[in-house]
């Protein structure tokens, strides 16, 4: 099929210009936006039959487990594996000093920022770190037992847990192998954001407040343990990966073991037992896979590595830190200047500034934000649904503080300051017009719907002003921000029409982590091709040579959506062109066209039937058009016997998309869509317990392609936000650096039984997003934004700020002066 024609490229440039309103939406939607389409993964998952990487069992497979450091910072000085080697069932022990283990390997997502550490290190930089040795055995239990038999002599090093102490120039180094000069390592790397002049803003402001708050780190743990399977077939690696971005495996693996040609790597990416971003982006992910490949090569057997549940706990969110703010504002709630600093632990991507969202969706003229990233001896902190946590928490706290100081309804303060990059809504309206969007005030629409659903005007009150008959204090919280909708990603997607039945198969590998993205892409392809939804299928677990951004229903739908839509449009055109000309040429001539007297534009496809627009009775099903396959594939093999059965040329198209959008530092166009969230709580002032009474989420998703999936993200995000806001924190023993709550009873995650309050999920469709049809992502938004909302809601209840998140009963009682 070759590359796109010049015309197709030109069309693609026009069709996928996401810096303005979608110039080519569909006139009618048959499947897009409809409720109730079947989930492709629904029955398999509900019946327990879906396969995950942890389920993979191969003949002769060995199980690989890793030594964990008992110390938060230490070096192995001697290791004796003799006793472990003698244990029945142990087949191989890989040590850090194995000659084939490199001192540096490509293991991460972003080479250079986190560095390229060794796959199996001699040094530990947090307690529990998998390092030093890996044991391959017939069972996981035997491997685990053998690990205990390894005798290790350790040289303990001084360690840091406290961020502010680690920042001190006299503090011991937390990670000298990678950062030999200082624990404060990101100085100069995307660390300062300046807009206007904050000094001017503070001087002009009627009020200035300063405050600080703490957010404790929370884990990324998911139901499926981190794992992977590695098998060599000759010199071809075959892998099964728990991986949010499977192409990353190929990208890194091709550099391992002296180099592996990309075309020899066979990859499987089965269902993912949760993927919140974190796991994919640290060298832990790839290091064990590197080791598994090495052991598989040495033993000649397939090797599955798996972490224990506890090992999965150590990775954490990027918002673990201390935030300090100075805000200047007028009595009417107009904010003039915000200066903020976030000092956070172990951020692998220290690029998300605490005032970033204030820049993206407010008219605040003067901003100055600074990131300080400090290495401490805890696990790595990476985007964990998601990297915007520090920025959205900061926005929530800044706006809630200003509203409280002014005695104003926080909804009114939000509307007053809505805008883009220091510009007011008049400017934003002009921008919308210029870019071809309707002049919809997204925040105003979201707020109106949310206030109605929450009965906000009747329920909201000044802080600490309402005690209920049951004795509890009643509180209302509100926050908002823009929908972030793009990850500067790229995507390749192809679609093929199958023989015999004319069904369509979407081709592109990605991870399926349960958000029903695959069905969403089928909805787009079905509408664009004119097929019935059941005639389109997508299995992203196989590697067809195309890769898309994943996971989806997050910011990545707006990237992949363009690619699948355009591939479908190209393919439809090719089908119609094929329908009016001889269906294929061979050495012995051609075959009669299905519509010999028509031009492609005379035809259309609907319900998987090609028909003549002027006379729909002249039609042929796509299945009849593509014809049945022959014995050897698409071409009939009866020609040698003198029969000639007509067949069609292969019908296939691909497209790709490179997103330009909101993560771009230059912000090529303003952020136009908004989200608004409302929370009602009650606080028991005798016990400090917080009761969630109701939540309302309103998200302007631009265009809801799969509304039920969008609502699922709202609901799930709210639950995740509550859990983080009320319970979740990783707790370390200050004396030893050992994580104390690395299990599912001591680390508190809200279960479904802890979520008994109603959650109203409301979608707004303004068409002003970066994706096709004006859509935006939603998957990361609600979980991220709702995490901080309990703070303002509790303040509204008790009239006292609690500046230490999560907000647990002890902190409530302390704020109330009860202890």
């Amino acid at each position: 099929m070759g590359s796109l024609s010049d015309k197709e490229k030109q069309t693609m440039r026009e069709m996928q210009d996401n810096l303005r309103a979608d110039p080519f939406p569909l006139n009618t939607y048959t499947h897009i936006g409809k409720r109730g389409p079947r989930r492709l993964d629904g029955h398999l998952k509900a019946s327990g039959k879906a396969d995950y990487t942890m389920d993979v069992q191969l003949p002769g497979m060995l199980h690989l487990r890793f030594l964990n450091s008992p110390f938060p910072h230490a070096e192995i000085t001697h290791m004796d594996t003799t006793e472990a080697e003698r244990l029945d069932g142990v087949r191989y022990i890989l040590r850090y000093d194995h000659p084939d283990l490199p001192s540096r390997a490509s293991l991460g997502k972003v080479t250079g920022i986190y560095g390229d550490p060794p796959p199996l290190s001699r040094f530990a930089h947090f307690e529990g770190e998998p390092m030093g040795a890996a044991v391959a055995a017939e069972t996981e239990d035997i491997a685990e037992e053998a690990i205990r038999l390894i005798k290790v002599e350790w040289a303990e090093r001084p360690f840091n847990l406290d961020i502010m102490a680690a920042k001190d120039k006299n503090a011991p180094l937390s990670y000298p192998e990678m950062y030999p000069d200082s624990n404060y390592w990101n100085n100069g790397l995307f660390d300062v954001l300046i807009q206007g002049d904050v000094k001017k803003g503070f001087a002009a402001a009627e009020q200035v407040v300063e405050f600080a708050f703490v957010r404790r780190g929370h884990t990324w743990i998911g139901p499926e343990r981190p794992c992977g399977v590695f098998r060599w077939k000759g010199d071809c690696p075959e892998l099964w990966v728990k991986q949010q971005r499977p192409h990353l495996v190929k990208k890194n693996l091709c550099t391992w073991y002296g180099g592996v040609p990309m075309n020899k790597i066979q990859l499987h990416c089965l269902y993912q037992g949760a993927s919140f971003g974190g796991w994919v982006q640290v060298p832990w992910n790839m290091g064990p896979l590197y080791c598994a490949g090495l052991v598989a090569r040495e033993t000649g057997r397939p090797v599955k590595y798996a972490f224990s549940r506890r090992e999965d706990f150590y990775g954490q969110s990027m918002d673990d830190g201390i935030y300090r703010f100075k805000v200047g504002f007028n009595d009417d709630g107009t904010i003039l200047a915000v200066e903020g600093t976030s000092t956070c632990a172990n951020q692998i991507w220290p690029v998300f500034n605490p005032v970033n969202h204030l820049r993206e969706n407010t008219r605040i003229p003067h901003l100055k934000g600074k990131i300080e990233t400090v290495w401490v001896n805890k696990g790595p902190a990476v985007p964990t649904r998601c990297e915007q946590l520090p920025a959205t928490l900061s926005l929530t706290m800044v706006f809630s503080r200003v509203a409280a100081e002014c005695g104003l309804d926080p909804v009114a303060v939000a509307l007053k300051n809505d805008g883009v990059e220091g510009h007011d809504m008049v400017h934003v309206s002009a921008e919308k017009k210029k870019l071809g969007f309707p002049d919809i005030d997204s925040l105003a629409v979201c707020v109106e719907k949310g206030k109605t659903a929450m009965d906000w005007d009747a329920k909201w009150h000044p802080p600490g002003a309402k005690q209920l008959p049951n004795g509890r204090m009643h509180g209302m919280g509100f926050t908002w921000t823009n929908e972030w909708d793009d990850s500067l990603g790229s995507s390749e997607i192809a679609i093929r029409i199958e023989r015999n039945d004319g069904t369509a198969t979407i081709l592109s590998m990605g991870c399926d982590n349960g958000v029903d993205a695959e069905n969403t892409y089928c909805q787009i392809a079905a509408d664009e091709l004119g097929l019935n939804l059941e005639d389109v299928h997508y299995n992203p677990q196989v590697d067809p040579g195309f890769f898309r951004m994943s996971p989806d229903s997050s910011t990545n739908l707006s990237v992949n959506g363009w690619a699948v839509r355009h591939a479908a449009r190209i393919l439809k055109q090719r089908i119609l062109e094929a329908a009016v000309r001889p269906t294929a040429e061979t050495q012995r001539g051609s075959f009669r066209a299905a519509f010999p007297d028509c031009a492609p534009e005379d035809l259309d496809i609907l319900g998987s039937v090609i028909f003549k627009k002027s006379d729909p009775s002249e039609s042929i099903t796509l299945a009849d058009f593509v014809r049945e396959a022959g014995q050897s594939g698409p071409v009939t093999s009866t020609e040698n016997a003198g029969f000639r059965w007509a067949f069609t040329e292969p019908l296939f198209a691909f497209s790709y998309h490179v997103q330009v959008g909101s993560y771009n530092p230059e912000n090529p166009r303003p952020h136009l869509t908004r989200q608004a969230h409302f929370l009602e709580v009650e606080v028991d002032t005798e016990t400090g317990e917080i009761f969630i009474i109701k939540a309302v989420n309103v998200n302007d998703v631009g265009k809801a392609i799969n509304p039920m999936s969008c609502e699922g993200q709202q609901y799930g995000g709210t639950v995740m936000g509550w859990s983080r806001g009320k319970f979740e924190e990783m707790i370390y023993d200050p004396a030893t650096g050992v994580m104390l709550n690395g299990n599912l009873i001591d680390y508190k995650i809200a279960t479904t039984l802890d979520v008994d309050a109603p959650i109203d999920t409301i979608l707004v469709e303004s068409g002003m997003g970066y994706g096709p049809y004006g859509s935006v992502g939603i998957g990361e938004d609600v979980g991220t934004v709702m995490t901080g909302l309990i703070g303002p809601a509790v303040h509204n209840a008790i009239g006292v700020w609690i500046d230490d998140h999560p907000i647990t009963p002890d902190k409530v009682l302390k704020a109330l002066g009860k202890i």
Partner: protein
Amino acid sequence: MKNFEHFNARSIDEAATLLVRYGGNAAFIAGGTDLLGKMKDRILPAYPEALINIKTIPGLDAIEETDDGLSIGALATLAQIATHPVIREKYTALAQAAGRTASPQLRNMGTIAGNLCQDIRCWYYRATQNRFSCLRKGGGRCYALKGDNRYHSIFGGSVKGGCIAVHPSDTAPALIALDGTVITSKRTVKASDFFKVSVNRTTVLEPDEIVTTIHLPAPAPGTQSAFMKFALRQSIDFPIVNCAAAITCEREAVTRARICLNAVSVVPRRTVAAEQSMVGSNIDENTADAAGAAAVANAEPLEGNAYMVPIARTLVKRTILVCGPSPAEVDPV
């Protein structure tokens, strides 16, 4: 998990004999909800060579109302107890306590005796791979004392040097409030005397001794009992504080009160001062609050757990209030 031998005992004698045969390197197992977790996490220095299953001993799971009260077999599950109509009506505190223990799955597996005999939940003691050799393991010190003690005792320590781990049972305070008795393969012990802290022990049971029955006396006329629990999550959590009370009233005046807190001390803590403050009084907000204050008067919170004191006080107050002749609308905890 490491392999172990497994025996299905058919009688108490057989179970005890098997235990002796392994010379202390064996353990009894019933529901296994605590033991298997301990083994899996390798929290103790020694790993049992054998588990002796006592679920196979017939007749140990019966719940029977008798002339003088209620007899509960040691192997009765928490789910059985939580839903048993007689227990719900007459021994309400126990049904409520069993119903608030753990999760539905664990209540279906866990037994009443297992809930009484469970090990402590201190996160230093429970750290995987026996990371902390603490006092309760015969080690040198209590790591929680100067560590993170947000879930530890507010009433001092035990064991030489001062282990401050609390007893985590939900049903224990209910049995003590209901004046229950624990019958073992060797003796009969009042529930209030059943708990005792020593190295590797949370009860008075000898290594080869098995709980066989729990007996509860029939409540006197005019008795109401109740249980309340404060935990971070409603769904599944050990208590930060729990409280059970059984209060008998005549013409609205309290004639007898038994009130027990748990998770606040190294063993379940019967709050005699609170009980005494209630006797002779009517149950109302003021008397209940005074009893709550009396219950925590001697509290000695640590650096991280002062918040447990007002919660314990509140739970005592609210538990008393729902035991009154006309139970007030009290927040469930």
